[in-house]
């Protein structure tokens, strides 16, 4: 038998060891006269150590940490951010005039630092999505201006610069081998502490050019599981939970549930290169068999709109400019043609969507097999054309904010994310025509022309336009509900 005293000593020695085994930062609920801190549950943990060039870029812009030269306004046009104004000097040169702003490390935002930041972005490996296929150089021009030159004419450059991947960071961020946005960005909040992939602490940046934020800071937690995220809000562990899954939405009170139409479209992409759907008549049969309104009403429980086109109702200008697709093939009887539909389960609704589609297509006479995997285990096979059809959700404006670039990457012969494996002369011509337009309204119209050309091939069948559900505690005000999913917390967010 050990003596009791030794047990006590052992217990005392063990205690600090054990506390090391807990996650830090549970109750950081410090309210002060300066405004209280916001507690936020985010869905996607930082995958690349907050590198601004990859998937974490949106994370930083949603938390109000980083900004680019321009930002998207509600109508999908480029609006001033760090750049006050800009002019197009000629086909390939743009001149951006900077506003007076300070980095979070105290240094001034100067043309030289901005040019350096953009240059670093162009040199990133792998290249950030907004710059894929684009070569640009940035040079300072005088006291307050930066000249951006593209190798090929790029009428959508201001839109491109809205991308979270092209955030402007101070010189200090690029000093080390990895780009480090901690305390080097320009937004209303600065990252002060990162706890692995579980949490991040943000403090208000008092010298923000757009005015001081109302919340004194943000405690962000990354909770990948949708139910857990919702539970965190329900048990008052957080004030704000992003991306509440549809299955959990009804467990939240009506007052805490906010749905926002997004530019994310779930569609059925048909493999036009090989397999059964190479035949346009069968594609037409599939299009006629599929009914998106059932999906919107039942699978998405009303948190979605039935598919109208590649661009949904959240793209405010799209509906007025939409053309009816012409020259579609006539549907033929599938007569037992067997097809494989692939989808991924990272978004929990997609397997359900695929199962409903399976029944709809089977009723029309197809034989349907399903293939459900984790996304990373599916993408390469899908791009290689191993499946006849693919059900996926795609944000139609995320990377660049430019409607044309998604059409080019997803549906043109040279596209890098062409899951329908579409290579159609008419589509390529329409996309190329849209790429040349520089006037915003004309570019949007040209994009809709291209959309009609793509829909005419039946390579994609838009199913639903998703809404995101944000869970917000009743005490919280001023959350930015952004259809582009790029912002969430701003200067006006408070509780």
């Amino acid at each position, binding site marked *: 038998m050990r003596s009791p005293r030794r047990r006590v000593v052992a217990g005392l020695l063990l205690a600090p060891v*054990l506390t*090391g*085994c*807990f*996650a*830090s*930062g*549970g*109750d950081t609920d410090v309210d002060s006269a300066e405004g209280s801190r916001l507690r936020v549950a985010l869905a996607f943990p*930082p*995958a*690349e*150590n907050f*590198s601004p060039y990859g998937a974490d870029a949106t994370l930083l812009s949603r938390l109000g940490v980083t900004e680019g030269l321009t930002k998207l306004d509600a109508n999908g046009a480029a609006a001033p951010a760090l750049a006050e104004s800009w002019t197009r000097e000629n086909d390939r040169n743009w001149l951006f005039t900077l506003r007076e702003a300070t980095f979070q490390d105290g240094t001034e935002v100067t043309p030289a630092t901005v040019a350096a930041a953009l240059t670093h972005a162009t040199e990133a*490996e*792998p*290249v950030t999505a907004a710059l894929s296929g684009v070569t640009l150089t940035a040079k300072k021009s005088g006291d307050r201006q930066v000249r951006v030159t593209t190798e090929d004419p790029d009428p959508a450059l201001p839109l491109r610069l809205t991308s979270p991947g092209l955030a402007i960071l101070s010189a200090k961020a690029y000093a080390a081998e*990895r780009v480090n946005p901690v305390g080097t960005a320009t937004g209303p909040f600065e990252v002060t502490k990162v706890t*692995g*992939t*579980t949490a991040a602490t943000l403090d208000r940046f008092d010298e923000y050019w757009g005015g001081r934020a109302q919340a004194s800071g943000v405690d962000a*937690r990354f*909770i*990948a*599981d*949708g*139910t*857990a995220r919702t*539970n*965190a809000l*329900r*048990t008052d*562990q957080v004030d704000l939970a992003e991306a509440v*899954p549809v*299955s*959990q939405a*009804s*467990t939240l009170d009506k007052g805490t549930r906010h749905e926002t139409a997004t530019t994310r479209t779930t569609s059925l992409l048909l493999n036009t290169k090989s397999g059964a759907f190479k035949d346009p008549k069968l594609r037409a049969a599939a299009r006629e068999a599929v009914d998106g309104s*059932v999906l919107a*009403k*039942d*699978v998405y429980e009303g948190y979605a709109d039935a598919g109208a086109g590649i661009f949904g109702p959240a793209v405010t200008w799209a509906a007025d400019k939409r053309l009816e697709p012409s020259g579609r093939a006539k549907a033929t009887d599938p007569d037992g043609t067997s097809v494989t539909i692939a989808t991924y*389960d990272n978004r*929990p609704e997609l*397997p*359900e969507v*695929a*199962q*409903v589609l*399976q*029944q709809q297509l089977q009723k029309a006479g197809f034989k349907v*097999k*399903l*293939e*459900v*995997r*984790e996304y*990373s*285990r*599916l993408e390469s096979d899908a791009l290689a054309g191993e499946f006849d059809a693919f059900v996926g959700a795609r944000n139609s404006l995320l990377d660049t904010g430019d409607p044309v670039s998604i059409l080019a990457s997803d549906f043109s012969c040279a596209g890098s994310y062409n899951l329908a494996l579409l290579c159609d002369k008419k589509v390529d011509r329409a996309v190329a025509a849209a790429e040349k337009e520089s006037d915003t309204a004309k570019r949007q119209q040209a994009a809709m022309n291209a959309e009609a050309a793509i829909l005419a091939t039946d390579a994609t069948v838009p199913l639903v336009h998703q809404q995101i559900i944000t869970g917000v505690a009743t005490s919280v005000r001023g959350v930015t509900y952004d259809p582009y999913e790029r912002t969430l917390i701003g200067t006006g967010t408070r509780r």
Partner: protein
Amino acid sequence: MLAAVRDELGLDAGPSKLLGEWLGGLARGDAGRSWISGGEVTPSVVQALGVSLLLMAAALVVAAVTAAAVCARTLWLGAHRRLGDRSGGSVAAMTAALPEFLTASVLATAVGVHLGWLPALGWYGPRWMVLPALALGLPAGALLGRMLDDLLPGAFAEPWALAAAARGIPGRVIARQTVRRCIPGLLPNTGLFVVGLTGGAVTVEQIFDIPGLGRTTLQAAIAQDLPVLQAGTLALVLLAAVAGALARPAARLLIGPALRDGALHSLHRPKPPAPRRTPLLHGTLLLAVVVLGLARDPLALDTGARLQPPSWAHPLGTDALGRDLLARIGHGAFTTLALAVAISAAALLTGLLLGLLPRLSGPLVDTVNAVPAVLAGLLVAGVAGSGAATPAPAVAAVAWVPLAAHTTALLEQERATTHITATKGLGAGHAHLLRHELLPAVLPPVARHALLRLPAVALALTSLGFLGLGSRPPAPEWGLLLAENQPYAERAPWAVLAPAAALALLGALAVTAADGVRLPRPFAGAPRRPKPAVAPLVGETG
């Protein structure tokens, strides 16, 4: 671009040089940098390991309490020498068959959200440990408790216990000594639990948002972040080695002298358990559900009637797409059971064969047990490609481990029994001993152990589904039913409770039926022991 990535990660050097460098760095505590995040691997893995160990320790406490509760009745009866009227065990078997993620989500919603007694998620202090530890510890404790409970009557019937009782030693002292007598047979399996709970608690870690090692390793495996995966797996393998190394001396400490001197008794039960009606009841119920379900269409979607509560039209309610649950359970029974039974049989065979060769299987058990089924699935998929048949070998590759550990433990004790010494003294050879004495003693308990793990095998098969392995929606496979209805557990509890109840019934059926099973005697002329099949031994696991 690929070249750029290769260059950045320094992959040009070739695998052997890279592995050498990694091992070299490891000696200095540097496991390299993550390919995904670029962060140091060592601190993050050490942190995750600490979290997981703490969770495992808490779960073990819960498991011990659960096991004690399961055994309490037998101990009380034994202490009062009234073991004859002992029966039951279905409840424990049903608890052991409960999937962790179901217990976890029920606890998080009921206790965490609705009652608000304990935090529903997070990992910030002792209060946060209770619910996850319960979710992990309850099924594990029920399983260990069942094992112990089956051994106790044998120990109570040993001569020393009788002698002690005759001498007037209090019943609780005898009860304590019987527990001590039986624990060594459980130690190898407890060691396996320790490792299994540390690396394999992925779903519980997700539901409670715990930054543990299981989640870290799995995410690394999916993202193909090799340095993190290597370090995480290495940590698990080391832990397995430590747990294995500790279990053996602990067993020796408890019954070492008797083992050395060959002075143990075979833990015979005083009398074979009376054939019971319970298996008949479980079996009829399960069969009724299956037969009724088979008459219905498991694939007919009716999205208008989703998540309907049980009614005459849908006796068990409907799922998220409006399909009839009774039909899905009925149609899923065959595919679920056929594969699970086949894998269990293969695992039993492998486990027995390898368990007979402890020198070979000992290290193998420790290593393989450190690999969670999901990782095994990824490995098998990497080697064999992700076909529909991949999950079966993946699960079989890990399912034999506890059975082999069990066989070894039984064998060690059986070899030290007095009747083996006697048989040797009569001139029996190795082959004779193995065939007529050791195998008949070892086979039945291990077979029953395999049966008890049947539901777990069925669940493990499903856990590989998200890798694109195994059955796909809309197949009505039981594990898949549980997984696809889990998000709706709060709104439509029947959608998860029905398949969970079916699994629990299966577990109870397997356990209670095993009591009545009379395995044929290996050879017609088998000597002496009248009913070898119902002579469970130390290490008996029910």
